[in-house]
C-alpha cells in the first residue's frame, strides 16, 4: 500500500511509520503545519505546532529513509478547529479540539489530499485497533486500556476508517514504543508526551480565550438565583468545574460547589452542589457512525471524556440525534463534549452532547 504517515514529531507517530516501512508499505511522512506562527522552541510538554516538532519529524523520516513533506494546513486548522473551539466556548459549551482535528483535518483534509495524490491510507500513532472482516472495518479500543485513544477517533466514519491505519493499537507491553524507538535509532525516543492543546502551548486556556473573546464581567449565582460571586467571562467555565470559582458567599452546608450551568446569553455562571451535576439522560446531536447507522434502541457503553470510564447505557436513535440513558447517574458532563458509544470494545459511533437531564 502507499501510506501517508502523519508524523507529529512525537515518538508514537514515528514508530508507527517505522512499522509500516517494515511491513513493506511504500511510506511517505508528512508533518502538518497547523500554526501560522510556529514557535521556534517550546519547553515541557509539546504538541504539533513548533519548529522543533517539524525538525524532529523530519529527522525521524530521514532515519527511516522515507520521503518527508510538511503540509500547510494552518488555514483549515484555524477555520475548522481553532475558530470552532472559540465559538463553542463563547456559546457556553466545552469543545474537544483534538477530536475536531481528527474529524476535519487529519482524516478529512489530509486524507483527501493524500488519496488524490495516490495514497491508499493515512496512518497515525493513535492507540486504537482496526479489524477488517471482509468489507467490514471495525474500530476497537487499544489492546492496552491505559493507552486507549479510541475516544478521539470515535467521530470517524466508515469511509475514513477504511483508509486509516493505526499500527500501535495492538501493543500490550507498557512503554514498549519508547524502547522500540531507541532501538531503531530514533532520537526522539526520550521526548516527552504531549498533553496540552497544541495551539495553546502555554497551557493557559483561560488566557487564550480572554484574548479571543475579551472579558465580560458577570454574576456567579446559586441555584436559587442568589449572587454568590463574580466572573470575568462565562467562557472561563466548564460544567463540572470546581476550582477557580472565587465565591464570596460560602455555601450554607459548607460543601464544595461546582459549576452546574453556563449561560452566555444571561452572562451568568450557576453553581451548585455535586448532586446538581447528576446526569442520567444525554441528548446528542450530529451523530456519526464508524460502520453503519444503528436504529432503534440498544444497550452499550458510553464514554463522555477522553480518559473517562465507559458507562453502561441505553442508546436510542432520535430524530437527527441520539438519546443516551445512563444506568447510573454520571457527574460533570459538559455540553459540547463528545459522547462515544461502544459495543463492548468496539466503537459504534459518536455524537456531540447538546443537553443533559437528571
Amino acid at each position, binding site marked *: 500500500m502507499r501510506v501517508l504517515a502523519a508524523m507529529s514529531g512525537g515518538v508514537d507517530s514515528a514508530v508507527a511509520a517505522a512499522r509500516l516501512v517494515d511491513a513493506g508499505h511504500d511510506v511517505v511522512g508528512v*508533518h502538518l*503545519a497547523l500554526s501560522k506562527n510556529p514557535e521556534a522552541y517550546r519547553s515541557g510538554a509539546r504538541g504539533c505546532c513548533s519548529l522543533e516538532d517539524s525538525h524532529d519529524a523530519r529527522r525521524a523520516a530521514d532515519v527511516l529513509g522515507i520521503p518527508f513533506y510538511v*503540509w500547510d494546513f494552518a488555514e483549515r486548522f484555524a477555520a475548522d478547529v481553532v475558530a470552532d473551539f472559540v465559538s463553542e466556548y463563547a456559546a457556553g459549551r466545552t469543545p474537544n479540539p483534538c477530536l475536531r482535528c481528527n474529524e476535519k483535518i487529519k482524516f478529512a483534509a489530509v486524507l483527501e489530499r493524500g488519496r488524490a495524490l495516490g495514497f491508499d491510507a493515512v496512518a497515525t500513532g493513535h492507540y486504537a485497533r482496526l479489524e477488517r472482516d471482509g468489507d467490514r472495518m471495525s474500530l476497537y479500543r487499544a489492546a492496552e486500556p491505559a493507552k486507549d485513544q479510541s475516544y478521539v477517533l470515535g467521530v470517524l466514519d466508515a469511509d475514513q476508517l477504511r483508509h486509516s491505519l493505526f499500527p500501535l493499537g495492538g501493543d500490550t507491553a507498557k512503554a514498549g514504543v519508547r524502547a522500540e524507538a531507541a532501538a531503531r535509532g530514533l532520537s526522539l525516543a526520550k521526548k516527552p508526551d504531549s498533553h496540552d492543546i497544541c495551539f495553546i502551548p502555554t497551557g493557559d486556556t483561560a488566557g487564550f480565550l480572554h484574548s479571543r473573546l475579551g472579558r465580560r464581567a458577570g454574576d456567579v449565582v446559586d441555584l436559587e438565583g442568589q449572587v454568590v460571586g463574580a466572573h470575568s467571562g462565562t467562557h472561563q467555565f466548564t460544567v463540572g468545574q470546581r476550582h477557580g470559582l472565587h465565591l464570596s458567599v460560602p455555601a450554607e452546608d459548607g460543601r464544595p460547589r461546582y459549576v452546574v450551568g453556563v449561560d452566555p446569553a444571561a452572562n451568568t455562571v450557576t453553581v451548585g452542589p455535586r448532586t446538581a451535576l447528576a446526569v442520567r439522560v444525554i441528548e446528542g446531536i450530529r451523530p456519526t457512525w464508524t460502520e453503519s447507522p444503528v436504529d432503534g434502541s440498544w444497550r452499550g457503553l458510553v464514554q463522555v471524556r477522553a480518559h473517562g470510564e465507559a458507562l453502561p447505557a441505553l442508546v436510542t436513535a432520535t430524530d437527527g440525534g441520539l438519546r443516551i440513558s445512563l444506568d447510573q447517574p454520571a457527574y460533570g458532563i459538559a455540553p459540547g463534549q463528545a459522547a462515544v458509544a461502544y459495543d463492548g470494545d468496539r466503537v459504534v459511533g459518536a455524537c456531540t452532547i447538546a443537553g443533559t437531564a437528571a
Partner: protein
Amino acid sequence: MTARTYLDHAASSPCEPGVVEAMAEAFAVAGNPSSLHASGRRARRVLEDARDSLAADLGVLPGEVVFTSGGTEANNLALLGARPPWRPGLAVSAVEHPSVSAVRERLPGVAVLPVTTTGHLDLDAVAALLDARTGLVSVMWVNNETGAIQPVAEAAVLAHATGALAHSDAVQAFGHLPVDIAASGLDLASVSAHKLGGPVGIGALVVRRGTPLSPQGFGGGQEARLRSGTVPVALAAGFAAASRLAAVRRETEAVRLGRLRDRLIAGAVAAVPDVRVNTVGPCSPAIANLTFTGARADDVLLLLDAQGFDASTGSACSAGVHQPSEVLVAMGRSVDDAGSSLRFSFGPDTADAAIDALLAVLPGVVARARSAA
C-alpha cells in the same frame, strides 16, 4: 530504489571525481596557511595556488579574491561592508536571493529596483531610484529561480554614474556563463563553489582593487583583514578544481544544456495543459522554471520524487512549509501561480534521457497534483 534523476543542480551540484581528488590531496597537507613554519608554508602554497587559479577563471587578480564560507557570507559582506557612512543607501533588485533580500529587510530605506514580467531588471527605472546617498547597487547576475540573466554591466554603469559601487551575486552565473568580472565593470561579485560542482562550505567575494570594504566579522585578520577565520585550504583547492573543470567545458555545456532546457520547456508546454513558462528572454542554459497553474508545487514535487526525480521550487521554505516564490510575485505573477511553480536545473550529468523521462511522467503527475489541490 530506482535510479534517480537529479534536476536540482542550482541547489547544489555534486562534486566530480577530479574535485574530490584535489580535496583529498589538499586534506593530506597538514598545517594552517597562516603559520610561518614548513607545514604552514605547504598549506599556504595549496591555498594560494587555488586562489591564483580561481582568479584567472574570474578574470581578476589573485589579491582580489576573498574566500568566504559561501555565497551567503559573500553577499552579506558586500552589502554590509561596502557602503561608506556618508553613502549608506542600498539599492537591490526585486528578485534577489534571500542572502541579499533578507539583508535588505534589515536595513532602513533600501531602494528596490523593479523587474519586468520576464524577471529582467527594468533598466529604465533604475536611475530614478538612485541618489547621492546610494552607496551600493546590487543586482544578481543570474536569477536562482528563473535563470534570468540580468544586465549587470549596464547596472554597474548606472551605479557608477551616481557615485555608487556595484555588486552582483554571481553565484548562479559562475561556471555556466562567461563571467569576466573585470570586463563587467563590477566592483564586487559573489561566487560559490557548490553551485558548479565544488564543495559546500566555500565561496568568495571578488573585491576589485581599490574598492573600500570594511570587514563584518573580527578575528585573526585573514584574507587581507576582510574575512577573519582560518581558510579551509582543501575546500579552496576543491573550488579551484571545480572552476577549472567548469571553465574547460563551459562553452560546449552551455550549448548542450540550453538545448535540454528548450526541449524540456517546449515538451512541457506541448504535453501539459496550462503551463506558464517563467524562463524567457536572456536566461541561463541550466535552469527552467515552469508554473503548473492549479497544482500545489509541493504536490508536484512529492509525485516527481516518488517517480525518481529530484526537482525544486527554488524558493525558500519556512518551517518546511513552501512559501510562494517572491521572485515570481515580483514578476507580477499571482500568489497562487507563484505557489504552483517548479524549477528544474541541470548540470554535467544531465542527459537527454533525463528530459525524455521527465516529459513522460510530467502530464500524469501534474494532472494528479491538480486533482489534489
